[in-house]
């Protein structure tokens, strides 16, 4: 069953795109498809797969490793780069040797967003990045996004919070897939 159809957009360097739409419209599906985790059932995505960094609902942290170890691991996986700027940008410097399991939900979220900056990737794909962040942390995150865009990066995210980041809004509601026809003799089951 199709989820979205007729959707078409471009994203250029230095630009942020914010996806809006009611729950269940297909924001997560769209982001996962863009990230290459699933194939689109129709249409195509033109982008450099090696420029993407994805951050989903789950934080992807190892609770028995420290903050610095978690970040260093992803820095190495994505080809080296220091973790200091990332720690600083998300105000995690004081927590660097704390086990990730001892962090609050908001601190974990900050750590998982800090992961994006150590990847060195240009296009960030963010699924509800601000969940469990307090107002101050949201500001930190917005700053990180602005810095990323200023450095020529791009971001596409699903969020309900107004971050105060210059960005286009894309409402997915008009692209909701129409009901599939019954008796279309296309080899499907309807």
């Amino acid at each position, binding site marked *: 069953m199709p989820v979205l159809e007729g959707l078409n957009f471009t994203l250029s360097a230095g630009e942020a795109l914010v996806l809006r739409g009611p729950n269940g419209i297909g924001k997560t599906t769209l982001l996962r498809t863009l990230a290459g985790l699933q194939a689109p059932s129709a249409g195509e995505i033109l982008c450099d797969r090696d420029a993407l960094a994805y951050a989903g609902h789950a934080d992807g942290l190892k609770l028995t490793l420290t903050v610095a170890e978690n970040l260093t691991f992803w820095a190495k996986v994505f080809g080296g780069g220091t973790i200091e700027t990332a720690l600083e940008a998300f105000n995690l410097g004081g927590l660097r040797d704390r086990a990730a399991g001892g962090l609050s939900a908001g601190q974990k979220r900050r750590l998982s967003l800090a992961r994006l900056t150590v990847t060195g990737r240009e296009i960030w794909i963010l699924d509800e990045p601000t969940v469990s962040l307090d107002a101050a942390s949201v500001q930190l995150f917005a700053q990180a996004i602005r810095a990323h865009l200023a450095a020529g990066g791009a971001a596409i995210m699903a969020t309900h919070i107004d971050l105060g980041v210059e960005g286009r809004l894309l409402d997915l509601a008009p692209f909701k897939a129409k*009901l*599939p026809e019954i008796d279309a*003799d296309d080899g*499907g*089951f*309807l």
Partner: protein
Amino acid sequence: MSIWEYANPKKFLATSERVLPTLWVLSGALIVGGLIWGFFFTPDDYRQGSTVKIIYLHVPAALMAINAWFMMLVASLIWVIRRHHVSALAAKAAAPVGVVMTLIALVTGAIWGQPMWGTWWAWDPRLTSFLVLFLFYLGYIALWEAIDNPDTAADLTSILCLVGSVFAVLSRYAVNFWNQGLHQGASLSLDKEENVADIFAFPLYACMAGFGLLFLVLVLYRTGTEIRVRRMAALIQRERMAADA
């Protein structure tokens, strides 16, 4: 006119409904005829007595037990390469039939083995291979049952079927190496001079053809059921989408 036209669920259903009655009758006639001929109109074997007559159930069931897996392998490959849903559903439909055939082969083998070898079960290579095949069937069916999304299930089970086939062949060789065995050689083969005598062989051929057709009938029938189940699920989901809209 390409064979892939039958990959369309509707075309498949229409065609299989047309041929199923004939196939039912044909397979029933062959099995009943072959069994009656084999049980009552062939002489007893000079060594094995009348116990040999279980061959008319044992050999066809064993044959179809292996061929069912082979059919699942081909159907899985077609799904992986050409993404025809009907193919994946046919593989799913064949598995329970295959497992029953394996079970019949094992049970009739045990019943035959008791008077011949003095034991219901021996860890003979052929017996052991069939037991391992039975386990492969169970795993395959359990994986189909465990996964909700039909496309995910089709993908995972077909890869399991491919990997499992390699390991099933490996197991066959390993088991051969591990124990030489009691089981008599093949009763029928194309390259051997000495087969069972014709008088035993003709009813056996009839039973084998009957079991082959029975397998085909059951798989067509069950695939049709699976298609209807999928169609119903699609209709329900469409209904739900309509309610949301």
